[in-house]
């Protein structure tokens, strides 16, 4: 039935394939929980991809590459923060502009790095664990970023649920006016959230150019940022659901590649478009369900805050 597809390899591959989406989605989830809609995820991811790639090649260290990716994404997100939080520009338009700007800028910066191989990011040596049949291959033979991405989900969940910081973040996204009246610094909190979102998206992008592909070409993230945006809605702004969503989408991506390799008699184009089709489908279903999912959306999402004093 599987036609040459090994389930252990498939699951292991989908965990790897989902990493960029998880990181970007968790970042965006925090941004949206703070009440900001940043549609520039794709742009921040690709800036992270190019900055991380260059940093890794120049320093010869893959870890420095991920740091560089996070810095690149965060730097680009600062432009968005300046536009929307200080100059009070429209968030949707600014986010779209950010994506276009990021795509162009990354192409310019990356011109001299096409065709180079970055330093490798190896699997974490987990010793005997990796030798367990099936599970060893599925769970214990990944690089550190895979484990890091799951840890980020867990920490985000815990921070949102159990800490004062998380409570304040949710409060700012829920009603910025009330939060301001209580003396919380709405703008500062939102800028920090935007930067976190940028850093996470940047790391996700770096994972694409350093591990998934691994090389630099223009437009390397290929719409992963948009999928991450869709997953945040799919997850109704909850971290663990975002992880599930990312694995679902990662799974579809990997499956279509495997099906292609296994010679399934479906045209390649249909398989390649399937993750995006499913994204659209999920968004339609989620938003049609009598507003059930929408009920959980942060109430101030997408609204600019201006302290009228």
């Amino acid at each position: 039935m599987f036609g040459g597809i090994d389930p252990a390899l498939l699951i292991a591959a989908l965990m790897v394939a989902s990493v960029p989406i998880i990181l970007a989605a968790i970042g965006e989830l925090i941004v949206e929980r703070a009440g900001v809609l940043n549609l520039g995820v794709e742009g921040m991811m690709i800036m992270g991809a190019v900055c991380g790639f260059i940093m890794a090649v120049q320093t010869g260290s893959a870890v420095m590459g991920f740091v560089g990716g996070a810095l690149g994404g965060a730097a680009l997100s600062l432009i968005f923060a300046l536009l929307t939080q200080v100059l009070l520009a429209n968030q949707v338009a600014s986010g779209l502009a950010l994506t276009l700007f990021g795509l162009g800028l990354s192409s310019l910066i990356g011109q001299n790095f096409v065709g180079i191989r970055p330093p490798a990011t190896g699997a974490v040596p987990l010793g005997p664990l990796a030798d367990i049949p099936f599970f060893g291959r599925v769970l214990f033979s990944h690089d550190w970023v895979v484990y890091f991405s799951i840890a980020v989900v867990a920490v985000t969940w815990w921070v949102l649920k159990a800490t004062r910081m998380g409570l304040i973040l949710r409060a700012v996204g829920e009603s910025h006016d009330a939060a301001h009246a209580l003396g919380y610094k709405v703008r500062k909190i939102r800028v920090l959230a935007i930067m976190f979102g940028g850093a996470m998206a940047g790391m996700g992008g770096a994972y694409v150019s350093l591990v998934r592909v691994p090389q630099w070409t223009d437009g390397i993230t290929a719409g992963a940022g948009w999928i991450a945006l869709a997953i945040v809605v799919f997850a109704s702004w909850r971290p663990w659901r975002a992880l599930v969503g990312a694995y679902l989408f990662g799974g579809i991506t990997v499956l279509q590649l495997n099906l292609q390799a296994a010679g399934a008699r479906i045209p390649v184009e249909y398989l390649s478009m399937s993750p995006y089709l499913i994204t659209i489908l999920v968004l339609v279903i989620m938003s049609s369900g009598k507003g059930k999912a929408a009920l959980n959306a942060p109430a101030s999402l997408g609204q600019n805050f201006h302290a009228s004093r």
Partner: protein
Amino acid sequence: MTRPELLRVAGVTKAYPGVVANSDVSFAISEGEIHALLGENGAGKSTLVKMIYGLVKPDSGTMTLRGAAYTPAEPHAARASGVAMVFQHFSLFEALNVAENVALGMENPPPMKELASRIKAVSEEYGLPLDPARMVGDLSAGERQRVEIIRCLLQDPKLLIMDEPTSVLTPQEVDILFRTLRQLSAEGTAILYISHKLEEIRTLCDEATILRRGKVVATCTPRERSAREMAELMVGATLTPPERAGTAKGAVALEVVDLSVASPIQFGTSLKNVSFRVAKGEVLGIAGVAGNGQDELLLALSGEVRAARDTVRIDGTGVGDTGPNARRALGLVAAPEERLGHAAAPDMSLVENALLSGALRKGLTKNGFIDWAATEAFAAGIVKDFDVRTPGTHVAARALSGGNLQKFVVGRELSQTPSIIVINQPTWGVDAAAAASIRQAILDHAAGGAAVVVISQDLDELLEIADSFAALNEGRLTTPRPVQGLTVDEIGLMMGGAHGMEVAHHGH
């Protein structure tokens, strides 16, 4: 008995571009004193308390708290010094639960479990029962206010600032609140109480400072003054109550039969079997605590929410399934409560806003083109007739103060020669003189034969202008009763959920 002084405000001035909100304001408040801050909208009360709470910095002047200089840079600092504030427009988060909301207003909240038990303990001690695990979005206005008060009480404040706390409460809830405040005062907590409801201030407060246009115009002991004297100090003019001509009632103009609609508003209240009829020349007053279906009733009457054809009838014709324009054509105009974003488009000019609702009845469009000259004349007429203070009709609706915009949107509807008028909160946030003129305009239209439905949370207002009275409670409307002979207790019971029979029981 002389109590030690707690807070002294001396010569405080705060100016914004174009307005001086506070000019050389001075007053003092002792420990355990209930001090009223009295004034019309725009008199500078809110700015003054925002300075005390650290949200706004004064341009000049000094404040001293227990003899030490007091300059809170932000609300955190104010709370740390023992100053707490209950806001006029609740500073609550609907999608968070009670305990989380309380924690957000505290400096060093204990862990959630401990906080929940403390909320329970304090709320019972002060007679304000509250379940810490409930979502604030599901609470009534009175319960929401309890959340705010308890948030303050948990921090043992020395000074509690209350900004118009009773505007959303039933008379019974007001009694409970006053009992709580007196208990706090007896324990030594000073209370700065902002309101323009004079009778309340007379029953509750020890001292009053009266502000007019940013200046202190008088201080007095409210118990020794009549409400009328204080009102005239507040307004700076002599007030005339609205006159009503005892007109005979005509045929039924608006009839609502067994109207049930689901609320289109998140956390809203659905209407359940609402029935009433209003005759030509009659004013029906509908009371109720905010969030009991007032907005939904207005939407259902204006045509923004549709129902079955025969649930709403204008002059006997079923219009329940038609939209606002069809109802306007039959003479029904509606003015919703929310001024910005519902009654008026914030970023459009007054002329454009006049067009939006007046186009049909005033014939402001011809063959799909706008007759700008006529529209401007219409807008200018509203500004003149209703004394809207604005630099001109070209300014954006957003730029007007709340009271002035209210005069404009009410005036816009009343200027369309309507035969049925539906208004939610006609004088909300409007100063006393303008409120009187709006009420007079409503009464004049009724005398001219219009059927009027006034939805309001201001009982005094309803009793002043309405012929018959009903109350909304969780989406149900009580049977309308003539205003004459109604007692405040009966009204409170109608608002509090006792329907028909129960009212009779309690009445005897």
